[in-house]
């Protein structure tokens, strides 16, 4: 499978481990990524309310991607939302399209060009069954909560690949790695990312609520698919601890790092040393199941190949 790749600003900065693990995992999954040339910022959450500017900036990236003749994959939920929203407007709003085509001196192609989030590509295009065949190591010992956040599945008129109220794709992917996927009532609740500059204390309250719930569920790790969520949950976790005078100490992995581990890829390739909250203890817990648990496993089962049905414990 060949796809055009838009990393977005954060994947070349604070979310570099998401970029590295995306590339490593895609390669193993048989996806050839071509980074689009001279891409620009999509406007992020800062221009999301300046609708025409956000869509104009995003449309330029779409036009660059169209030059490759390939569909476009995006790992960031915010970029993915912005570029998809722009694509829709460029295909349906003639006045807006006229403005942007005039600014860029180029025509927007109204063909089958598709923009997809990386999670959608992994779960629905590559498919969990084929991905599982690449898994070499069971991640038993990891007890994860799946965190989707906001823009990955909302609004459903832009993001159509999963249920906006109770999405399942990340759940299914976690289960396929052999890790335990715990029920998480906060899976689509906001992490507070866009409140960081307007009201930091509110942002931290929302973040802490997610961790409280994750801990109550018995999780030792959170799995995400967005660099903004990761920036708050991992990058600012120490600030949240300080503000609430508490200890959280919960590693937050990108889903690409998680499946990379199952594929047997190295810590270096997945840049696990770049996460702000060290996942060292978590990595040590993998494969340390008790003897009793081992007996339960069917002897013919390939490690990690079977998405186990989890019963609430």
């Amino acid at each position, binding site marked *: 499978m060949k796809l055009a790749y838009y990393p977005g600003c954060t994947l070349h900065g604070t979310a570099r481990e998401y970029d590295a693990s995306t590339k490593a995992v895609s390669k193993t999954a048989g996806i050839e990524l071509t980074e689009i040339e001279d891409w620009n910022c999509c406007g992020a959450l800062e221009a999301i309310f300046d609708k025409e500017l956000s869509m104009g900036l995003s449309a*330029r990236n779409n036009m660059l991607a169209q030059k490759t003749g390939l569909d476009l994959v995006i790992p960031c939920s915010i970029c993915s939302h912005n570029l998809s929203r722009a694509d829709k407007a460029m295909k349906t709003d003639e006045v807006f399209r006229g403005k942007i085509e005039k600014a860029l001196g180029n025509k927007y192609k109204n063909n089958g060009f598709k923009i997809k989030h990386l999670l959608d590509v992994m779960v629905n295009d590559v498919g969990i069954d084929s991905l599982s065949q690449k898994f070499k190591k069971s991640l038993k010992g990891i007890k994860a909560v799946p965190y989707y956040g*906001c*823009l990955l599945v909302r609004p459903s008129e832009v993001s159509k690949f999963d249920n906006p109220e109770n999405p399942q794709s990340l759940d299914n992917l976690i289960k396929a790695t052999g890790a335990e996927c715990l029920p998480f009532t906060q899976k689509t609740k*906001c992490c507070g990312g866009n409140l960081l*500059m307007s009201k930091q204390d509110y942002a931290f*309250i929302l973040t802490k609520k997610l961790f409280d719930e994750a801990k109550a569920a018995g999780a030792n790790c959170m799995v995400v698919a967005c660099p903004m969520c990761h920036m708050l949950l991992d990058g600012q976790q120490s600030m949240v601890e300080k503000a609430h005078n508490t200890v959280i100490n919960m590693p937050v992995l990108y889903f690409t790092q998680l499946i990379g581990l199952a594929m047997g890829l190295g810590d270096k390739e997945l840049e696990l040393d*770049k996460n702000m909250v060290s996942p060292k203890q978590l990595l040590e817990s993998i494969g340390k199941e008790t003897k009793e648990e081992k007996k339960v496993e069917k002897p013919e089962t390939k490690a990690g190949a079977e998405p186990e049905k989890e019963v609430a414990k």
Partner: protein
Amino acid sequence: MIKTSELDPNFKYEIANEPGGENIKRCFNCTGCTVGCPVTEIDKGYNPRKILRKALLGMRNEVLTDESLWLCASCYLCYERCPQDVKITEVMGAIRAIAQREAKAGKIKLANPKPLFDNLFIDSVKSNGKWYEAGVSGMFMLKTKGIGGVIGYAPMGMELFRKGKLSILPHKIKGTDQIKRIFEEVEK
């Protein structure tokens, strides 16, 4: 208390003329936006239904100067659930755009620091094509919290730099002239 003599009946049309604000008049005040709002959950004073109702009634000045206008987390939950497809998140954006213009013209004052950050961010995209994280964050800290704020954030900045996550200088794309033309076209 509402003073009918101070209401601006054109305010709803003004919002509907902004990109994103088109559907405001569809709102029938069912409160669906507010019951699921994650910000309302932690601050009962934040009430998106009230903002919409006031806007529809024409309480222009009260809506534009209300600090809570800047508390929407843009999580799109209300947008998803609204039975009238008001597109509330984007309506909030349309109202913010009007508030920013009024503030630029010196007619109102905005107390929340969010528009300052957004503008610094957007300016850095305008000149580089990409977000200049170190520059924007540093300037925002300096302007809102003074040099003490910058120093307070220094350890985190150093840690990010040490991990190769923060670049000291901005990255400029080749097509900055195209970016400038996009700004010109959408600002017309």
